[in-house]
């Protein structure tokens, strides 16, 4: 049972994340009155890229070659460290909020370095923009997780998820505010609207795509997959930290089944929300983004002040 649990815990995020990208694209196509590609198209893309040969610039150093592995392994590790459909484990050593935030930062660090490595005209600017946004996002991210950590009295993600189930009364207000802040951070960290346009290759606007522009073949597959994993991680965090109702708290088949079904329903809602946002609002100007990210931080300070004293 334990082995089965850990297999699912480790493989769930990478297995499902391309599907999530596919579903968002399908939803967006629906909004645009298109049929759109199959929701399994991202899997086909990744498999195709994995089997391709590569072209690497002669200016590239080992950072460029090695970074995709680091970025992908970070996304797998964090994917395994978050509560997915049950909270009845204490998680990995990396299931602590600050550890999660800074381990994710390792991925950002190497992604930005890889973007700068070949000395092209795009990569450096992509890195600069990415780092600017992630620098401002860090405060909001730590504080929305901190708010729920203070509500639940632990910084371990599994404990948080478990204890949030029990909250009542005034803490709900703080929880909702923190969730609002976290949604802003989710959009920034996963490079969705209004922060970045995931489907553009226009040099004036792109952030994530600019950094990966020189990668090809297997390395590009890993980077794309890692980006999808990050979307999955943040969506599941949103669901299981701020709205965990339905998640299994003990380890019997029935509650795990319930946990699984409720997770999938909630993921679909989150994906629909993202697709809805991307179809209805425009991308913001780059220099307006920090305001949005600082809002996420300030909302959370408010949320912390509103936590009732025990």
């Amino acid at each position, binding site marked *: 049972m334990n082995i089965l649990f850990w297999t699912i815990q480790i493989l769930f995020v990478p297995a499902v994340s391309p599907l999530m990208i596919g579903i968002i694209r399908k939803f967006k196509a629906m909004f645009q009155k298109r049929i759109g590609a199959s929701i399994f198209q991202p899997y086909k893309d990744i498999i195709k890229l*994995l089997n391709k040969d590569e072209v690497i610039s002669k200016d590239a150093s080992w950072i460029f070659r090695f970074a995709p592995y680091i970025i992908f392994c970070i996304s797998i590790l964090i994917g395994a460290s978050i509560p997915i459909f049950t909270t009845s484990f204490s998680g990995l050593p990396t299931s602590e909020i600050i550890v999660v935030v800074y381990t994710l930062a390792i991925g950002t660090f190497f992604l930005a370095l890889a973007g700068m*490595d070949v000395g092209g005209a795009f990569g450096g600017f992509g890195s600069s923009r990415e780092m600017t946004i992630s620098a401002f996002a*860090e405060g909001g991210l730590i504080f929305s997780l901190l708010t729920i950590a203070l509500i639940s009295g632990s910084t371990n993600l599994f404990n948080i998820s478990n204890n949030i189930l029990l909250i009542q009364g005034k803490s709900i207000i703080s929880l909702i505010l923190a969730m609002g802040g976290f949604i802003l951070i989710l959009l920034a960290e996963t490079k969705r609207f209004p922060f970045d346009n995931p489907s553009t290759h226009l040099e004036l606007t792109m952030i994530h795509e600019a950094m990966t522009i020189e990668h090809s073949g297997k390395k590009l597959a890993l980077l794309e997959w890692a980006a999808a994993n990050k979307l999955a991680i943040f969506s599941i965090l949103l669901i299981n930290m701020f709205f965990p109702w339905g998640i299994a708290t003990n380890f019997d088949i029935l509650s795990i089944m319930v946990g699984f079904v409720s997770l999938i329903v909630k993921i679909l809602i989150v994906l629909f929300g993202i697709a809805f946002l991307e179809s209805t609002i425009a991308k913001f100007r780059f220099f307006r983004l920090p305001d949005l990210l600082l809002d996420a931080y300030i909302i959370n300070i408010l949320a912390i002040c509103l936590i009732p004293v025990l």
Partner: protein
Amino acid sequence: MISNNIDFILLLSIFLLGALLSLIFRRNDRLANYCANGLAIIGSIWGIVLALRHITNGYYTNLSLEIPALRVLSFSIRIDNLSAFFIFIISLITLFASIYAIGYVQHYYKKYCIGTLGFFYNIFILGMLLVVSSSNAVLFLVAWEVMSVASYFLVIYDNNNPKNVKAGLVYLVMTHVATAFIIILFLILFKFTGSFDFEIIKLTQATIPAYIKDIVFVLALIGFGTKAGIIPVHIWLPSAHPAAPSHVSALMSGVMIKTGIFMMIRMFLDILQPVPVWWGYTVLIIGVISSLLGVILALTEHDIKRLLAYHSIENIGIIMLGIGSSLIFSSMNLNSFALVGLIAALFHTLNHAVFKSLLFLCAGSVINKTNTSNMAEYGGIIKYMPLTALFFLVGSMAISALPPFNGFYSEWITFQSLFQGIAVTDITTKILFSLSAGGLAFTGGFALMCFVKVFGITFLARPRSIKINKVKESSFSMLIGMGGFAIISLIFGVYSSFIVKTIKQIVVDMTVFRENVDTNAINLTNSININNNFADVSGIWVFLALSIALVSTVFVFKFIINRKQKIVTGETWDCGTDLTPRMEITSTAFASSMIRILRRVVGPIVTKEVKFDKDNLKYFPKSIQFDFKINDIYGKYIYKPITDSVSWISLLVKRIQGGNTNIYIMYILLVLLIALILLL
């Protein structure tokens, strides 16, 4: 009379011998180099042994030299666990910095006198050792001056560059103004307690009136804060640290500024306890401002050593956050959390010493090979200096608080101690701690951005100037110096719970933490566990998790999936034009959007001058000159008014100081008369 323990005297004599021998052999560059750094290495190893023996056996060194006729001038040295901890830091950094120096100093051969460098280097270390171990204000001030003056001579060592001499002057003035504050501080304490001895001051300070204590606090904050480099008294730091030879920069940034921190801990958390809560608030606010502004100013820099110097200000800010939270908790009688705050501060002090020295040594090797510290001329150095680049990467990750390196764990504890403050019920404290923790979070984000910039611009991409093509890897001893720090950085991260356990042992020894301390506030059996399982992190397990994830990812994707993949080497996409270094991003461009967002804080001054071939046909510019400067806010609004008023007063004084001896004699006569009349 000198009583017991000869060990510490031996430690001091090794450095003194190093200083004298290098002066004696100053005619022979090579011999002077080996004497100075060799003895510094021996001395620092002895220092590490001595410090560890103190910490593990928990014993004190007490040395005193009393002159019965002049009780005021009696010298005394007292090494408790806190001093031993700082002796450990000084010795550890000195050890690898000196190993590095053996290779590094060689490029000064025939240009400068190696003997004087070795002399001041050893005297400088000697001064620092005395500063952290003296237990008497008079000896302390002597040691403080020895340290300051020796470091001044090291700053101006490379005196062919007029910029260095100017930086040295700013440093000398600032450090002496600070010393003046410290002298006043000890005189006030002497007036109220009747002693210069720290122990006696500590025992009798309860009788000092509260407002005098507040004055002492402000004086200490300015005096010791200047040495530590807190904003706004930091201005000497970004000019002095880059001017010194790199192994000295490592010591100045890694260790010397920490003596300011040491004295603040000594004064506020040891000697003057209990303290009012506003002291803690002030220290916390200064911590936030220093850390945020330090990192933002670092982002705007393009000189690699100045940039690192600004990061020292940032990290001093983070240490101040720990000290500030500790002070607040101790005045609220939450001693167990005060313990967490102080442990965070001390652990970060140790960690910052390690990774900042590492970064300075790496920067020194790069500057040594390229003969420039301007990052705009770097690029692609990772191919020419692969090991230096690797060590710099380790340092960058450690300073950006990325696991599994040491910087992460001390920031983690700092975060936790601030979180405990947010959980406090008092609303002012809660908001202040929320803002501080936010400041720390944003500082982390900015630091990460800054080190992507430094590493990316310096080591990655293509060279931006021709001189890079001739660059070669540094010599063996320099690599050992850097590599040693890089490995320590990893070890202190992986075994963080063990290190923190030792630091806890050091801290609980202090009088403040003798009572009301719940040992579960920070429990260190297998991991770092804060406040009864509120938060828990284990360096070893995080390291293992990361390594297993990385190894299995590489294994699966490199050696199993599509193993026969062909890799073709091509050109970087050039957009259809020639690929020139000008297409690469520069350090100014990298930070430009951030500076634009923060323009209210940094006040950038951008001037753009475009020249055209024909004035009436403004389509084809002949040349564009782009000038980017950061507004020197502190110089303009704080230091300029001060220097202006000083020169105004000097002009007034000039009127009565005409240079005529007869008039001076008349002045003396007049003063004598007035004094006599007053006595009557």
